[in-house]
């Protein structure tokens, strides 16, 4: 009898093995969708099931929602990818032989992310995150153009450094826990470590957290460690950009937060709050300004991801129940919205055959429905009501203002700057004289619309169940 938390990891891995053996990309695409649907079902089942704390796995309020979102976005991305990839083959950017590889890797990546989310053992968490990262590295280089290779190489180098530093931090945590919990498995179990953190050596915990912050922070895309992010988003296939922005960044942040919770248990240790606030603000404002210079549509939204991750880190750095609640809500909303944006971007890129802003104009004339969807998605990410992103951003700003009024000016400023850039680009893209080709769009619009509707619904009405969940998770975060 497989438990839900085991299913959510094993199903994708098993699917990866099967998909690697299947010939033909169409069959593979269908298989991909089925496997993702199964994983999503497991994720929902997990939400409804009881919480567990085991030696290797943990299911508590904090990760159960992210597992559900992870599997949901995985499912919708698989749907999108199934229709999108066909087009890529037609235009000759990819060959069918690669696609078998692509689908298997997709499932393996989802499985690894789920593993990281569900792990109670800090070593397993690290393994899951590293595997997911390495697989995305390969996927980013899929198109084999010089730019893609450069992006993938840079990503590989930076990710490897981040991985190694994070592993070193993991070892240091183990060393801190060893005198208290003894040798072996208990010292690597997160729940036990968190419970006994008060008895651990604060200086060692400080050093460990620094390494973990730099290591996992590289994967979250915090400035100045963000250098891999824009290129990786721009050069990889669009489904991968969606997964990167929507999921992998979240999982990395989740790992960082688990360790923040650990640090919270030891009052004598360094308070991660101020550092996270500063790094978040730097990322936010830096990315917001960089938005103005971008001429490639995917790179543009990659910087938007950096901006939002910065905002989230800022929120979690502020701490306290409201800010944590807002941060968690924002993680969920951003995940859904950003992936829907990348779906839309994928459609737009197919429609115009290019990724450069200068060549994408007048969508309202050539592809009206796409233009509406794209506009809504951009407005959603810009933080306009009634979408969910507005709710979380508003909450973050008000709690900051209530506690440190002058500090609230900075994220507000950053968000406004970003808002301006988004609107500017939106206007250029939607209105104006159409130029260039206007191809038919082959990809399915369902995922994009589905996500937008979810974000809209969450903005209007958040079900009490979810509110309770978020609140409890916020309390855990301290």
């Amino acid at each position, binding site marked *: 009898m497989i438990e839900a938390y085991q299913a959510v990891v094993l199903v994708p891995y098993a699917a990866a093995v099967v998909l690697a053996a299947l010939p033909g990309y169409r069959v593979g695409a269908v298989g991909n969708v089925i496997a993702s649907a199964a994983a999503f079902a497991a994720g929902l089942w997990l939400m409804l099931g009881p919480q567990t704390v085991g030696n290797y796995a943990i299911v508590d309020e904090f990760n159960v929602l992210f597992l559900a979102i992870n599997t949901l976005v995985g499912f919708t991305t698989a749907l999108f990818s199934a229709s999108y990839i066909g087009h890529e083959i037609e235009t000759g950017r990819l060959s069918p032989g690669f696609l078998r590889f692509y689908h298997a890797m997709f499932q393996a990546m989802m499985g690894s992310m789920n593993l990281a989310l569900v792990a109670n*053992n800090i*070593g*397993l968490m690290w*393994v899951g995150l*590293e*595997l997911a990262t*390495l697989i995305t*590295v*390969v996927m980013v*280089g899929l198109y*084999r*153009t*010089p*730019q893609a*290779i*450069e*992006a*993938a*190489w*840079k990503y*590989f*180098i930076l990710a*490897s*450094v981040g*991985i*190694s*530093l994070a*592993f*070193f931090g993991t*070892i240091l945590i*183990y*060393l801190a826990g*060893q*005198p208290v919990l*003894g*040798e*072996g*498995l208990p*010292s*690597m179990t997160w729940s036990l470590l968190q419970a006994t953190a008060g008895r651990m*050596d604060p*200086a*060692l915990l*400080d*050093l460990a957290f620094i390494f973990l912050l730099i290591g996992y922070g590289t994967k979250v895309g915090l400035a100045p460690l963000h250098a891999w992010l*824009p*290129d990786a988003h*721009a*050069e990889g296939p669009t489904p991968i950009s969606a997964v990167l922005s929507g999921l992998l960044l979240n999982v990395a942040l989740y790992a960082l937060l688990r360790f923040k919770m650990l640090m919270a248990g030891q009052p004598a240790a360094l308070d991660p709050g101020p550092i996270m606030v500063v790094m978040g603000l730097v990322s936010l404002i830096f990315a917001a300004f960089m938005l103005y210079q971008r*001429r*490639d549509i995917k*790179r543009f939204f990659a910087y938007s991801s950096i901006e939002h991750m910065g905002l989230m880190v800022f929120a979690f750095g502020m701490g306290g129940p409201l800010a944590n609640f807002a941060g968690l809500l924002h993680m969920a909303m951003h995940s859904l919205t950003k992936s829907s944006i990348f779906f839309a971007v994928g459609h737009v890129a197919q429609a115009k055959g290019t990724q450069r802003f200068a060549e994408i104009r007048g969508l309202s004339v050539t592809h009206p429905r796409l233009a509406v969807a794209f506009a809504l998605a951009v407005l959603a990410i810009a933080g306009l009501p009634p979408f969910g992103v507005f709710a979380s951003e508003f909450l973050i700003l008000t709690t900051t203002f209530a506690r440190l009024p002058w500090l609230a000016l900075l994220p507000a400023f950053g968000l406004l700057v970003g808002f301006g850039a988004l609107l500017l680009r939106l206007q250029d893209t939607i209105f104006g004289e159409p130029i260039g080709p206007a191809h038919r769009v082959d990809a399915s619009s369902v995922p994009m619309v589905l996500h937008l509707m979810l974000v809209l619904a969450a903005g209007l009405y958040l079900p009490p169940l979810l509110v309770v969940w978020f609140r409890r998770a916020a309390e855990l975060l301290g």
Partner: protein
Amino acid sequence: MKLAYEISHLLAGVMLVASFALLYQQRIAAVLNAFAAQSITLALAVAWAAWSEDRPDLFITAAIALGLKGVLIPVALHRTVTRLGVHREVEKVVGVGMALLVGLALCGLSQALVVKVAPAMAGLGRDELALAMAIVLLGFLMMIVRRNAVTQVVGFMSMENGLILAATGARGMPLVVEVSVAFSVLIALFVFAVFVFRIRERFDTIDIEALDRMRGDRR
């Protein structure tokens, strides 16, 4: 007991010397040999820890380190370099002397950090931790100051060597972590092999500077 300590210390010290050798060498073949030497020393250090502390599971780690990183990967890289036909010198960002000096500073830094941070740890564990941290930082330094794609990966692998040494020093870390570390090495190598060939295909060189011209931020 003191002899056990001395030998572990000696092996870790030799690994550190190999890290400096990696910074010092100017030909790719010499860099690969220094890396092989470091990995073999790592295998010896882990095997010694397994024998003297009576932890038989570490023998597996030692065997993996020896087989994979001491033999397989250097041989594979040698052949890759020959096949790529790249000219054999390593392009540098800073000179050897400067790199060595910065390496020394990093050694001092890691020592100062460990002494400050872990006074409660047992003597042997602390020394190995300081040396392991220095090796990790030196591997990182090598990735930064050498512009060649092969040496960047070698730098990363030597960082991993330092990590495995640190994990060995941490008594009782379960086998699952060690096996997964080994597994990650495999994945990393696979990724690397795929990439170096692609880079060579597209750029006719594995000098990272050539890649830099493709940087998207300028667009």
